[in-house]
């Protein structure tokens, strides 16, 4: 994920040049953007690579790299995917484990851990409700039996 994002970013820089980013995402004054356009046109005519030797362009591109790395890093944590087989290998009853996880609507393949955990909690809650209802009915039955004995 991180490597892909960096590659995409490098590709974007190579394709559109740093100038395009800095003039689009940062409020550069009109004269500056006009200058950029005129420089780009002249460079395109010559078939050369556009390079604007300003500190602002350098810092803004560094800032963009930093920003994209932060987003990519946070996404890689929140969308961590672990295969169901890997998870269930650690369970004492592997078939029960894979039955639970694969019963997720839409399948469990490629689903991130947070959603798997959410689904497992939902299943547990459901099971717990049934167990609680059974306990209540058993208690009532036991109470009735005790009363009948008297």
């Amino acid at each position, binding site marked *: 994920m991180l490597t892909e994002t960096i590659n995409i970013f490098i590709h974007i820089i190579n394709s559109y040049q740093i100038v395009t980013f800095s003039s689009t995402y940062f409020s550069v004054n009109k004269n500056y953007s006009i200058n950029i356009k005129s420089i780009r046109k002249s460079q395109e005519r010559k078939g050369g690579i556009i390079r604007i030797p300003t500190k602002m362009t350098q810092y803004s591109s560094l800032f963009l790299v930093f920003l994209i790395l932060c987003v990519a890093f946070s996404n890689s944590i929140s969308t*961590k995917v672990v295969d169901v087989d890997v*998870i269930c290998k650690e*369970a*004492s009853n592997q078939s029960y484990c894979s039955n639970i996880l694969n019963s997720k609507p839409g399948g469990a393949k490629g689903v991130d851990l947070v959603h798997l955990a959410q689904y497992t909690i939902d299943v*547990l809650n459901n099971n717990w409700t049934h*167990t*609680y209802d059974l306990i209540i009915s058993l208690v009532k039955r036991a109470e009735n039996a005790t009363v009948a004995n008297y």
Partner: protein
Amino acid sequence: MNDPVGSVGQRLADAQVDLFYEKYPAVAKDSADVMKYILDCSNSLKQNETSPLLSNYVDDIRLGAQVLQIISKYLNLGK
């Protein structure tokens, strides 16, 4: 059964909230607590004669809690 109604149900609700707020170490703690309560309950059922259906239900929850524990372990590895 050491008040399993409040314990297991409450811990599952806590786990849901902690998961929402991405407090993964807390999710691990909640799932460990669920497992502890279920094991207490399971041991109690073994000592006292009761419905076999209830034992099956409790065992299902134990296996589910184990799955949650494994998932929360991987969630914390990613942190």
